[in-house]
């Protein structure tokens, strides 16, 4: 098997790692948008997290990665196969730039149609990513109609196909991770808003960190399996932390005082819509669960506010200040010292 760079061996990039863990704890938070330069370990981190998570149980032979005891919408041939539950790694789909709609949504199985005249649906990448991760590099360069489609499916958790005489629907719940560089074109605000969290990643500025990155990568390339073994304990700790937080999250209490703070923060920043407040609350709860706490505190809120709100602020053409300092300022003003 091909070794995957361990999650806990990633140097720095704490905000990105935290955002990914928060999203892994509560899937309803929605996707994560990662802004940043090329070669800063974005896809490495996402891939590492996917390989870290415990395997899922699927029905053998199911082409839609359905749960072993699935109910709800299921396409006609989903139950084909033995139907016995089997273990499968968490899916990770890397959507290439320039992917066609056919590839993403799925299309008529051309081979079968031509050879046997059978009308059968060939599931696309959306079906493949069900219950896993869908990673889109340079999401800002993706065709608009594809971005719309992906975000819609990500929000509804279901892929509805109406094309080429096919009419079916299948579940497609996945964590959408987008990455992009704002210098190469911006994403429309309505689309940005659909992402739950956003983080800015930068190349580490301290030379010592950069040397450490190169050193670890070099060791990984020379001896992948040995390197992975070195970090297996740390990775296992991360898995345990996420699993525990998942169990604990629904019971974490959000006091009214914290909810009010969240509303006032969103109001002060002029973040559009209620989605910001909702995400803020969910992310704070997930963070509290990750930290082993039973109650959300203002400190949790302040910690997740930048990643939950950064991309929802209306860009002021004449204001040079970036979003992150604006959020920090608002927190300093509103939060009790």
């Amino acid at each position: 098997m091909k070794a995957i760079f361990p999650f806990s061996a990633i140097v720095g990039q704490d905000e990105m790692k935290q955002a990914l863990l928060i999203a892994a704890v509560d899937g309803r938070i929605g996707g994560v948008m990662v802004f940043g330069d090329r070669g800063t370990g974005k896809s490495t981190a996402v891939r590492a997290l996917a390989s870290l998570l415990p395997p899922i149980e699927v029905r053998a032979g199911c082409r839609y990665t359905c749960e072993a005891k699935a109910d709800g919408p299921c396409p006609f041939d989903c139950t084909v196969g033995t139907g016995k539950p089997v273990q499968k790694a968490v899916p990770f789909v890397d959507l290439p730039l320039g992917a066609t709609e056919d590839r993403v949504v799925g299309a008529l199985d051309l081979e079968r149609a031509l050879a046997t005249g059978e009308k059968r649906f060939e599931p696309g990448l959306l079906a493949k990513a069900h219950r896993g991760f869908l990673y889109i590099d340079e999401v800002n360069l993706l065709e608009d109609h594809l971005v719309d489609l992906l975000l819609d499916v990500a929000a509804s958790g279901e892929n509805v196909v109406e094309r080429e005489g096919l009419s079916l629907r299948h579940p497609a719940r996945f964590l959408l991770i987008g990455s992009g560089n704002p210098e190469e074109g911006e994403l429309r605000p309505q689309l940005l808003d659909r992402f739950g969290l956003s983080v800015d990643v930068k190349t580490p500025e301290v030379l010592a960190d950069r040397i450490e990155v190169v050193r670890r990568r070099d060791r990984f390339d020379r001896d992948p399996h040995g390197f992975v073994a070195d970090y297996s304990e740390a990775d296992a700790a991360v898995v345990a932390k996420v699993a525990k937080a998942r169990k604990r999250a629904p019971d974490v209490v959000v006091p009214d005082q914290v909810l009010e703070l969240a509303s006032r923060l969103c109001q002060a920043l002029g973040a559009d819509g209620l989605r910001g407040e909702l995400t803020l609350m969910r992310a704070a709860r997930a963070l509290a669960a990750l930290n082993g706490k039973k109650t959300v505190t203002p400190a949790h809120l302040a910690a997740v506010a930048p990643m939950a709100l950064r991309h929802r602020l209306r860009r002021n053409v004449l204001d040079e200040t970036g979003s992150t300092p604006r959020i920090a300022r608002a927190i300093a003003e509103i939060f009790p010292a």
Partner: protein
Amino acid sequence: MTDAELAARLLAEDPAGLGGIVLKARAGPIRDAWLETLAQAFPPGTPIRRMPVGIPDERLLGGLDLAATLSAGRPLRAAGLLVEADGGVIVVPMAERLPAETAARLAQVLDAGEVPGPDGQAPARFALVLLDEGVDDECVPGTLAERLAIHLDLDRLLEADDLPPAPAPAPAYLESLCAVADALGAGGIRAALQAVKVAQSSARLAGRAVSEADVAAAVRLVLAPRATRMPAEAAEPEAPEEQAPPPPESSSEGPANEPTLDELTELAVEVARAMLPPGILEAQAGRAQRGAASGQGAGQMRQSPSTGRRAGVRAGRLGRGARLDLVETLKAAAPWQPVRRRERPAATGVLVRQDDFRIRKLVRRAQSTTIFVVDASGSAALARLGEAKGAVELLLADSYVRRDEVALIAFRGEGAEVLLPPTRSLARAKRALQDLPGGGGTPLAAGLEAAAKLGVAVQAKGRSVTTVVLTDGRANVARESGQDPMVDAEAAGTAMRLLGLKSVFIDTSPRPRGEGARLAAAMGARLVALPRADAGALAAVVKAAA
């Protein structure tokens, strides 16, 4: 051994690890000779495949062989080029014209080392040779270039220093290369890692531990071509060293001829400085910036897009990005089934022939680029420039929704300058606009000429162009001394009209006189008199014209 030879041997030593090479060279005997050297460096029988221009995905990644499938009556698959080249080399000619989709596919396979197939993953580990024949603005897609360790310009080859018989080993090479990458501002962590790999390969080739000579080679082949700034004088590299943890092996207790980290870094920086003639960095930085954006431009060159909204079907052949509309194809084939069945009674399934194929027609909304040509001369310049800047930002904020691009050219003193290459990034536009200079003469002709050049380049990418010229029309600097500046400007304006560039002429003089009208007529431009142009009015005029 020259760097060119060394590069070829390094690629043969670790093809997949290094990713490949960006070879900047025109087609010709020198390039052919290098490719020959590369082929010789690999063991005989290694696949060395040339990727045809405009290769379809089925050929690249493998897929259904449609023609064979139809004649055989059962699905037949063909392996893709990438799988066939496993363990070898893929040569990509005219890489600067590589469509963004193909570049993205290649980058993905380079990262994964395998191609998804019908029966799981098929290995595809190869070195990519991008033959970059780009001039001026053209360059290879950035996503791909950064994944290929070696960057080599065959026109600017340096003879490598003759190696001393036993070059001093350099155990601190990893730290040193990171520090040099930092000092040169060279492409983040990926570049540093690639430099480390090249140094290791080079050492393995020579059968020794990594030495000074290997570090120097890594700097020449990997880091220096990616440099975005000149390393500071020799004193500088010591500063970052303080932050670095002292590498255990590199301290003074080693043999006397073993360089310390400082000495090694200094040496590497010297190598880099020798390779970077003054002025080259500015050119490279511009290229890098454009390369970032050109990933999408290449895709838009096509007249009939391969992606977009569906708009009916037409009969046609597959290939070149054409997409089959299956239902329509089957409909076209349906009436002929009884006849064809008589010819081939044994066949099962639907009998489809090439002329039944129906191709989807796709449309993509034409995207537009607005080029502002702003008179930055004389006393009124500052106010005028300020308003133009405001208009550019307003239009950009608007292009959030419309996905339009904006560019800005300013002319003053002796010539014109593209201050903002076409972009729809607010962040980048703001940075470029921040300090816009003003004052001096009015080289109107030079400004129009620059606009025409940029306009034609943008049109070539399949975008529609609107040029907006803001000036009082009083040219006083000609392109060549001795010419009448006004006549010169009108000639440049006529050229724009003949090139078919749509333009708007905004006359900003307090009391408009005849010059503006004459010039606008020469350009075939719409004339708008806005003596006190303000950003809002400007944006409104442009939106109405576009």
